[in-house]
């Protein structure tokens, strides 16, 4: 009986150790793969220590979309109605990307502009980026 109980305790400790270790590894992996979600204002405020991928949400500024020559992608401005950030993207824009509409993209901060790696359009036409108000509503007020 005594040895049986001892074995149980040992098993329990082993299980807890494994779980703890696994959990710690999990959290580390998690911390290294999260992307902060920022608005242009927040991005400009903390640009100095942005050395990993983040997500940016805002509205595409009207008439700001430009196609660069020689397959160099496009640039456009993203705004949260307070500040604007310039974004460069090489690749296909989703069909829902439109000047004046909301956009969420992930990218890195590079030479004073955002190098977007992906422009997300995983949303319907009524979508607006979290934390922002709809500019069309402001106009109507």
């Amino acid at each position, binding site marked *: 009986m005594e040895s049986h109980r001892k074995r149980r305790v040992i098993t329990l400790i082993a299980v807890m150790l494994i779980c703890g270790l*696994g959990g710690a590894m*999990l959290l580390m*992996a*998690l911390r*290294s*793969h*999260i*992307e*902060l*979600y*920022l608005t242009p204002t927040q991005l400009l405020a903390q640009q100095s220590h942005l050395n990993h*991928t983040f*997500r940016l949400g805002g509205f595409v500024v009207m008439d700001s979309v430009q*196609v660069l020559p020689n*397959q160099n992608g*496009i640039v456009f401005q993203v705004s949260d109605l307070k500040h604007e950030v310039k974004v460069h993207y*090489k*690749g*296909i*824009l*989703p*069909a*829902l*990307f*439109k000047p004046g509409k909301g956009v*969420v993209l*992930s990218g890195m901060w590079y030479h004073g502009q955002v190098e977007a790696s992906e422009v997300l359009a*995983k*949303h*319907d*036409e*009524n*979508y607006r980026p*979290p*934390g922002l108000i709809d500019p069309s509503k402001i106009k109507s007020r």
Partner: protein
Amino acid sequence: MGPEIAFILFILSMLSAGGVMLVPYSRLNPEVILTLSRRMAYLQMCCLTASVLLLLWAFIESDLTVQIVARYSHATMPFMYRVCALWGGHEGALLLWIWILTAYACVVAIGRHHVLDTLRSHALSILALIYLALGSFLVITSSPFARFLPASPDSGQGLNPLLQDVGMVMHPPMLYVGYVGLSVVFAFTVIAVLRNQVNAQFARAIQSYAWFAWGALTVGIILGSWWAYRELGWGGWWFWDPVENASFMPWLAALGLLHMLMVLERTSLWIVWTVLLAALGFVLSLMGTFLVRSGILVSVHAFAEDPQRGLVLLLYFGASMIATCLLLMRCASQSTESKRPLAVRVRWMAAGSVLSMVSLLTVVIGTLYPLIAQAFFQEKVSVGAPYFNQILTPIFLLSAVLSSCAVQVSARQQKLTRQWLQSAFWIVMLECVVLGLIFLNHQPITLKWVLASTVAVALAYSSLMSVYQRRASWGMGWAHVGFAVVILAAVSVSEFETLSQWSLQPGEVVKQGDWRIHFQSISTQKASNYRAREAHIDLVNTQTGERLMLKPQQRLYTDSGTALAKVAIDVGVWRDIYVALGQRLNQNQWAVRVMIKPGVRWVWYGGVLMVIGMWMVYLRRAQAREV
């Protein structure tokens, strides 16, 4: 009058559900109670079905005075999509959920099985409780029967174009059949725990429900993945999007549960663990509904944000969590110790279920972390796909290794070294053949691919061998081969796929790998509910001379004003060629994306193989029961 009658019928079905819920606690004799529960369950089903059909009629007729019709349907949509616009919105989807719940309640009521019969009326009572909870939530926060009166809009808003696809017809119902099936298993388990009847006979009897639910969930997930691949224009088959995870979490729990039920059937051991998995399956399917429907996480689906709805569902979620904890405490106080030595395979199976639990935890943490971060650290974050891939790839490979060991072991065998060495030899030989074939085809080989293919070959070989040596059934064999195929296909796609993006003018020619891509022309197309620009892209394989013409489109849906990129895919057994037309860059230039994806089909074929395996096991069990 349609929706009003539908509403009255709905209330009637709620009343009979109330009857089903309460009758087991009356002092009638048990047989009378069972008969009463059965009849009231049928009545509940009939009323709700009639109610749903009346709403469906409103959709078919495009009766715009009904709010959900005006919001999700449009008279110009094809018939099929007008029908499935019923579950295009939050209200209709929940209605579908509870309709499937009543259908299951009917199946439970019809069923006859000597072990389950003593539990049946109480299980029906729990199902009726779930029905009442979700049904009252539905009518109070978002009634599907509401009208726009006196003034109704002139035309409907139309279904989101992304949803106008054959996937919409099949994916949500299938997924819900899986979700709700888990709540049936849960209901029986709760009663069995309270009656102290969780034992081998119970495990055997409940298994067919669990198998069925898991199979339906698998089909639902495969359909969802295939749909996203074709419609979202991103070319991936799995995004680790919160909503996808919402369906994947109950799937993992159900997978663990199935294995543990088989263990329980043989040993009467690990009852707490089994009950935990059964409860998790149910709780996670509720959470899935909550995550998808509250719009609390930014996702592919991005439904309307309505915190109130989310809050109520969260409340139900919390209540079922508490119930689960109480259940487990009660269960733990009953569990017994076994004195017999354990059969080897049983241990392996239990270990497998632990692994599925670990992967479940990984997904849960990754999915919920953004919510936690927002609540506690006031920062908005999202967890990217690399997190899931990094952690889950090794876990899945490990579980494949584990199951390839497990299937080789027969029930009572103890000495295994020789057998393992033998099969290891054959596995290595087979793997060499596979690598040789790949090498002859001039494909680059990566270390990760070698590893994954070895594991997959090992699993497929040992499953088929154990079927051949009559240590396992065909169903089990195919299910595991399916898992091997999914692993191999998933790794092949991620290692070997090529992607390139161009801005092209009509007449321009570019090269990608062996393919010569000729952007021929662009034209305008028209259909009943959209206008489209269609590119004609000619692809020629310079090695084999194979020639393809693909026509991707940019569509503008006229009823809702929504744009959608319709990709063109050349489906092949060994590779898919995926072409998407992007934005117009300037007067005469268009963005084009070309992807070559080796083996992507096999991700779904492997899933289908799993379902076939499950179906064979299910039929065999059904037969065994009749004999």
